């Protein structure tokens, strides 16, 4: 614990605190949120900040604070789906390629190259064109788009480990490859996978919010930060900035916090991104 | 000519690299600085040119012909570096900018540092390379550092180092990073150039025999301190400090340095 605190530094611990607050907000939304996030009242449109409505109401008279709290749910689950699937498939592909090498490795590389040819958002939009807009489609498609990044990093690290004695000697003893891979190789690349997932979480959050903003992710009247930014666009230009600005800031702060923690854990390189 | 007096260097709060190092080099003299890696030899050299790592704390004084070189700043420091003292570092592949051709390295030293006209510098670059025993002058001038061997590149660095006819040459393990086959050759060229120009040299090495072959006097360094200074034969026949004795005993038997064109008496 102390080691973790040292690694994070003051800013890192603040970032962890922010993440904790957002996660708790998402988990406890039904308890925290004072109003139903999807139901508004025409008489309550564009209310300013008050004791009743902390952050005011939107153009449909819905409580913005409640929508922000509920919005944390979809805004966090989406990226979570993305990074979990990316980690599982990316790692499996990488370790399979490394263990068998040769033809398997180069065949898998070709497949990943093909995925690399698509910008992430384009791949997601193609999937949405085929299967229709929803958070699940968007998240699954983004996961597919992220897999090559994750697989590339894990592969190159596992490749280095592959020829080390602790992997070679059980192999010569005739222990099955799957067993060695899971028991020895996986634990050694695990920290890299965790760091990569952390960094990817931020990217996924922004790209999923972008898809929701385009009307291709989370569908109204559901509360979601990206959707709220888009929903509040007209209000913002008419002088009611609360909805868009607060939802946008929630994204910025969460992504910055997650990004900083990831950076402290081991940097962007672990996500396979040069950026 | 060069006088180092009670030089100490610390990095950070508690890493003392050099402790009261005192050493002098007379005009035209070659002094060897021998010790194992991490003993502070390189740092002594780098302090002379003020290129010790950032964050180092340096005390003591270094004078070159009674000019305090540690106190030089700006243009005066630059002139001293360009004209009076030159340095040959261990790894020539790191010394040359990897994206510039060899010719640019030589011209940079003569034109940008020493202020010779570009045209003169260009002409001299070829002559200098011939002087350090390079035949395919044009090819080498056009090459990028990664296209040349370490030995070839170290000759280029030597050529650059003698271009300004400096009074003092600082050599930091100039052959350690090279192939065994080219080490003697490069060393011989360095030694020859030094004698031709009558330069003084402070020669850092971990190889006592090599130092004995090219130097007039040898200083033995251990843990940031100079433990013994003497003539090569003194150190060989009658080492005073136990560490010198260990160094003498631990050398591989039967290998002695002989230099082609050796002009040391």
């Amino acid at each position, binding site marked *: 614990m102390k080691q973790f605190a040292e690694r994070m530094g003051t800013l890192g611990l603040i970032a962890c605190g922010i993440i904790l607050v957002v996660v708790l907000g998402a988990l406890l939304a039904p308890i925290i949120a004072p109003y139903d996030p999807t139901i508004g009242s025409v008489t309550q449109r564009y209310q300013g900040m008050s004791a009743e409505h902390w952050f005011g109401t939107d153009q449909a008279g819905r409580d913005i604070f409640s929508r922000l709290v509920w919005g944390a749910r979809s805004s966090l689950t989406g990226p979570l789906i993305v990074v979990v699937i990316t980690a599982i498939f990316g790692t499996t592909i990488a370790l399979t390629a490394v263990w068998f090498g040769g033809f398997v490795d180069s065949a898998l590389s070709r497949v990943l190259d093909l995925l690399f040819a698509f910008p992430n*958002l384009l791949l997601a939009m193609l999937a949405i064109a*085929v299967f229709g807009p929803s958070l699940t489609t968007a998240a699954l498609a983004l996961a597919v788009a992220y897999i090559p990044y994750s697989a590339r990093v894990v592969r190159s690290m596992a490749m280095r480990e592959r020829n080390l004695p602790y992997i070679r000697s059980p192999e010569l003893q005739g222990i099955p490859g799957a067993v060695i891979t899971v028991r020895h190789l996986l634990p050694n690349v695990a920290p890299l996978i965790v760091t990569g997932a952390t960094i990817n979480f931020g990217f996924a959050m922004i790209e999923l*919010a972008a898809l929701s903003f385009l009307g291709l992710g989370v569908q109204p009247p559901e509360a979601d930060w990206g959707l709220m930014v888009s929903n509040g666009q007209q209000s913002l230009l008419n002088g009611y900035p609360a909805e868009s600005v607060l939802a946008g800031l929630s994204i910025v702060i969460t992504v910055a916090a997650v990004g900083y923690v990831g950076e402290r854990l081991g940097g962007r390189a672990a996500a396979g991104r040069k950026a | 000519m060069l006088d180092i007096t009670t030089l100490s260097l610390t990095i950070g709060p508690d890493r003392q690299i050099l402790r009261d190092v005192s050493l002098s080099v007379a005009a035209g003299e070659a002094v060897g600085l021998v010790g194992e890696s991490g003993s502070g030899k390189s740092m002594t050299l780098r302090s002379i040119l003020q290129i010790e790592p950032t964050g180092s704390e340096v005390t003591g004084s270094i004078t070159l012909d009674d000019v305090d070189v540690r106190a030089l700043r700006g243009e005066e420091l630059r002139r001293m570096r360009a004209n009076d003292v030159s340095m040959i570092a261990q790894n020539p592949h790191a010394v040359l900018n990897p994206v510039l051709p060899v010719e640019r390295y030589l011209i940079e030293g003569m034109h940008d540092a020493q202020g010779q006209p570009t045209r003169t510098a260009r002409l001299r670059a070829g002559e200098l390379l011939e002087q350090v025993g390079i035949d395919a002058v044009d090819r080498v001038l056009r090459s990028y550092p990664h296209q040349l061997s370490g030995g070839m590149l170290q000759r280029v660095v030597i050529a650059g180092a003698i271009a300004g006819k400096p009074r003092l040459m600082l050599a930091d393990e100039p052959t350690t990073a090279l192939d065994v086959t080219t080490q003697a050759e490069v060393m011989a060229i360095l030694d020859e150039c030094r004698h031709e120009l009558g330069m003084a040299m402070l020669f850092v090495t971990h190889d006592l025999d090599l130092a004995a072959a090219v130097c007039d006097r040898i200083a033995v360094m251990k843990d940031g301190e100079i433990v013994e200074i003497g003539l090569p034969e003194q150190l060989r026949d009658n080492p005073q400090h136990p560490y010198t004795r260990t160094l003498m005993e631990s050398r591989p038997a039967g290998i002695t340095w002989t230099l082609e064109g050796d002009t040391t008496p």
Partner: protein
Amino acid sequence: MTFILRRLAALIGVLIASSFLVFAAMYAAPGSPENFLVQGRTVSPDVLAAIRAQYSLDDPFLVRFWNWLINVLQGDFGRSLANQQDVGDLLAGRLPTTLMLVSLAAIIIVVLGVGLGILAGTKGGIVDKVVLLGSNLGFAIPTFFAALILMSIFSVGLGWFPVFGSGDGFFDRIWHLSLPALALALPSSAVVARITRTSIREERDSEHSVMARARGVAEGLVMRRHVIRNSMLPVSTIVGVHIAGLIAGSFVVEYAFTLDGIGTLLVNAVQRKDFAVVQAIAIVLVAAFGVINLLVDLLYASIDPRVKVQQTR
């Protein structure tokens, strides 16, 4: 030269494979095109058959793919199912806006990202702290959010820039597109600035820079010739990757500013399941993405003499 040819061949291979992938995905999509065309109206089987024949919907999958591919290679992207327009014309009409937007954003990334990075890396102190903080926050700002904020401050609030639309004529266009381009370039600039700074810091203490100083080369020259020049090698790849990334980012910004670019066209086509348009844009974008990445690699090989040798050997 063989390096370029090999990379070109690889790019063409990937393009064919990805167009197959896209075509297959659209083919397998639930809901048939003729139902889309008749839009729920009841039509006689004869009319349906005529439509199927007109769009060659009864041909086997591979035949249809082959015909489509051949047509695309001849510049014929088919017709939009939604409004019967020629997809090629549709794309051509939208292309200038997107091209201009992406180019402007690319320039901003280079000027702002690389510029601030060099400033922070060479100056240090408070400048460095500010740039570092800015880049830590900057990469977290979604482009669409930056778009809204910029729009509300500079267009609605101060009235300096138009709110919507892409303008006519060259300079009017630049004026209309400068805010969108800024929004689009902001996150990338943040990342580029930070990487530039790190790269400069590393080069500043590199042996060849130190030895150049030790040889009496003036500090300004050491900075320009050794530190900044060499730190641009890794930076140029990063900049390239980010410029390629702008292609996808531009959809979102175009949509936010309701610009009539390829991105808005794609978003609308996706929403309306206008597959002919989606397919065409996907292929064009994948090609553009691949070409930019290829150009970046070639550029890198041409500025770093070490790369060329390794690749062609």
